[in-house]
């Protein structure tokens, strides 16, 4: 029962894993610094990634994350909304005041989108990961870019 382990970890490890790790930093003070939020938790980064394409509601974020990671990261309503709450609090995403006009299936749902800060933080996190990736490639842990990898999405 993995979720028991997860919740136990939440109990003692404040701020919990789902919450932005940067919570403790005074990111809201002075001026905004995207680096202060790094590293993001995988769940937070996945949500930011999912929202990078445009506004979505909770359920579609869940599906998108699950599909994109081929099930490696599975979001669960409880997890998702807790993470959303933290992201909303830190101003990385916000909620649309009005429902998108067309193309979306459910008008009653709440839609979320990235804020400027959210974009900046997501970008900073991506760069951080990219630099780690480069480092891994340089040390031959990964194949260089362009080589076929079984994990590459088609």
């Amino acid at each position, binding site marked *: *029962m993995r979720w028991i382990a997860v919740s136990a970890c*939440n109990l003692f490890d*404040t701020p919990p894993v789902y919450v932005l790790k940067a919570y403790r930093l005074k990111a809201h003070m002075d001026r905004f610094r995207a680096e202060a939020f790094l590293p993001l938790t995988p769940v937070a980064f996945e949500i930011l990634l999912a929202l990078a394409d445009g506004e979505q509601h909770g359920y579609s974020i869940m599906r998108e994350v*699950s599909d994109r990671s081929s099930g490696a990261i599975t979001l669960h309503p*409880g997890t998702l*909304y807790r993470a959303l709450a*933290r992201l909303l609090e830190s101003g990385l995403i916000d909620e649309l005041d009005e429902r998108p006009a067309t193309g979306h299936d459910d008008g009653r749902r709440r839609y979320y989108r990235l804020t400027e800060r959210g974009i900046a933080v997501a970008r900073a996190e991506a760069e951080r990961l990219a630099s780690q990736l480069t480092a891994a490639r340089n040390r031959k842990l990964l194949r260089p870019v362009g080589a076929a990898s079984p994990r590459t999405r088609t």
Partner: protein
Amino acid sequence: MKPSRWLDVALSLALLAYPRAFRRRFGDEIRRDFHTLGTQGTSGPQHTQGKSGTSGTVDTLARLIAAGFAERFSAISRWLFWPTQRQHLYVPTGRRHMFWDTLRSDVQHTLRLARKSPVVSLLTILTLALGIGATSAIFAVVDSVLVKPLPYADSDRLVSVWSDATRQGRPRNTISPANFRDFQRMNQTLDGLEGYFSFVTPFEMAIEGPSEVVVGMWVTPRLFDLLGRTPLIGRAFNGQAGTLEAIISYGFWQRRFGGDPAVVGRTVQVANNPITIVGVMPHDFTFPYGSMLGPSGFTRATAVEVWAPIAFEGPVATLNRMLTAQGQLVRGTHWFGAVGRMKPGLTVAQVQADMSTVARQLEQSYPETNAGWGATVVTVLDQTVGNVRAPLLVLLTGVACVLLIAAVNVANLVLAGSVARQRELATRVALGAGRARMIQQALTEGLLLGVVGGLAGLVLARWGVAALVALAPPDLPRVQEVTPDVRMLAITVAISVLTGVLVALLPALTALRVAPQAALQEHSRGTTGGTLRNRARAGLVVAEIALAVTLTIGAGLLIRSFVSLLSVNPGFQADHLLTWQMNLPDRLRTQNERIEFYREFLTRMRALPGVISVGGTTRLPLGSTGLTTFIDIDGRPRPTAEWPEVQFRRAIGDYFQTMGIPVIRGRTFAGTDGPTAPPVCVVNQTLAARLFPGEDPVGKRVRNGQTQPWITVIGVIGDIKHGALEETPEPEMYVSHLQGQVVSPYIVLRTSGEAADMVDLVRAEARAIDRDLPVYRLQTMETVRSESVAQRRFILVLVASFGVLALALAAIGVYGVMSLLVSERTQEVGVRLALGAAPADVMKTLVLQAMRFALAGIVVGVAMSLVLMPLLRAQLYAVQPRDPLTLAGVPIALMLVAALAALMPARRAMRLNPVEALRYE
């Protein structure tokens, strides 16, 4: 209801795990997602694939609940630790959020104040922790011993049944085997009645190698079924007559067989008879508890290691002397205890009435043996712990007193703190803080102290319980079952909260009286609202002293009882005596063989270097319980049922001389009083005075059975305290071992040097005399004597330490109040000194003020003692509950303590430099 409706309900319940604000904000979304997940089923997101619908739903719900609690905890931790750093997405809503906000600020305020004066805060918490910890620990003991059910199934339906020897005034006498069978057969109200021997029997067990003595207990075969306990492994007795079986205890199994399950079915030799071990009882099983044993018994040891089934016929019954010469069950000798299970819904009174009816029928059927014998029924719990209830409740009261004093002390400190914070409080009121707000703050402070003290107290209580169990005398029933548990936790929480409220009460009340204008106008000298506060403070000190006086008087009475108990002359000289018990080798079958063995044994023991004399008996004073017999006096024919009852013992070798028991008249046994010589006996003074008043008992003849030969009294010895030091001596008669059988004697050895130094020598010599001679309970008589008062000492040590603690706390209280008083009166004292008052006078004034407090407290305390101490009467010995010495001595001691506590602050005042003192004006 449709399945989806159920799901809705389940989901709503799951959502309750979340904080309300979170639920309001995200609840709808979660609900919608949950339903979408449910309808899409396997075609939904990949992570739900492969799971069947129901288990997937349950899994989702469980995860929701877990996440909800996680959110709650993170909300609380953020609220506690980073309350202001970030604006929360969802603000607390509802009526109570203001409450939480103010609570937080109050907590923080209290913590800030506590940090400012760390020593005082630490002392405060320590005081509370001590009080709460001690109370919880004692509570745990009282709860485990007196309240918790015994380790038997449905134990509140179990009753102990005794014979009521109305004529001897012993309502809980043991039962004779034949009467037991009749009780078992004729009762209407019990679902079963099972019996046991009312003493433990030393079994000489040979497992591999030499035999050792294990503590054995004879029980009727169905006893374990009646108690509702089954063996851990193996089986209970199946009640088949003629099989030699035994069940062993968990402890014995672990100790002697290393917990090997193959022990079941194994055959061991007990007194050269093969016995099959058929089962091992669980480790929490105890039977019987010491207090379930009747008045007669071989030893005080109660941890039974082996149970063997009683047979009412056959060779085992003969061995146990249960059959008369005519082969019938014995009716005139009593040694059975009995446990019965009441039929559901019946009360003890109904069972009592039923058993009394049976006893009356038996009286009519067997007037010879049963006249004057009734029946007594008590609950098993009452039988087990009834005699420690009063002492334990005394302990609980004492510790509660200490807790109360500690709370009063802390209340005083807090009150003093609120004096210092007068202006702060006044500012708050001026800025519009309402009454509720002020009370809330005081309560928060008190509760916080209580909770922190309680947490520390919990740790202390755990240690305390361990220490109490280690210190407790082994004959305190059920003490091994005491463990810190949830009930202790609950009581600790309750006590902590209560203490917190108690501590906060007076500060809260005085906070209400703050008059902001006056307080703020006046400079630094906090006298406004002071009348009430001063009065409250004085009241607290008086209450504290009163409690301390009461507790100390109680402790004083117990100490006086204990001292007079220790100085009781037991009738023998306990110093330089070594004693042990042993079982004679089984190969000695005849009386002559035994006499020969004793002769050699005594000679060799007496020849040991450092040994003055050797003797033995069947019942060691203060170390074993008694066995009685009924005697007929020559020339005074009476019906058997009216024969007087006397304690019956045998003497071996130079018993009286070795023990130092004085011979008052006549002589003691000599070598010529052998098996073929006329039977003789020695009686004690009480017997002589009671049965032969105004006559010379020497030469009189008695017998203990109509077919028995007459026994001539040859001497009178001094009374000895046999059962306990506080007991009045009972009539006793002694018969020489040369004229009777003794198989498990107690041997006493008088030494010229330290008795304890002889232990190894004696053990080696016993082994040299006979390889098969297990020597056990080898100890000095001083130890035996000290163990006989162990329970009293345990209670005494605890109550006395509570008394000391109470005195110390009271002294601290007086000191605190006087210090405060002095610092408040600095200016006044300065003026006085400047105007020419002598420093000594200043000091005198202050000390006298403290004395007034102390006197008021003492008056109240002594009055309380006069009312309360008679409740202690059962615990006292040779001291009246209103003992004038204690009632006068304790107050004087307390006055001294109070004066000392007041002296230090008073001296500080005396040394004040008037210029300095007035400068602050």
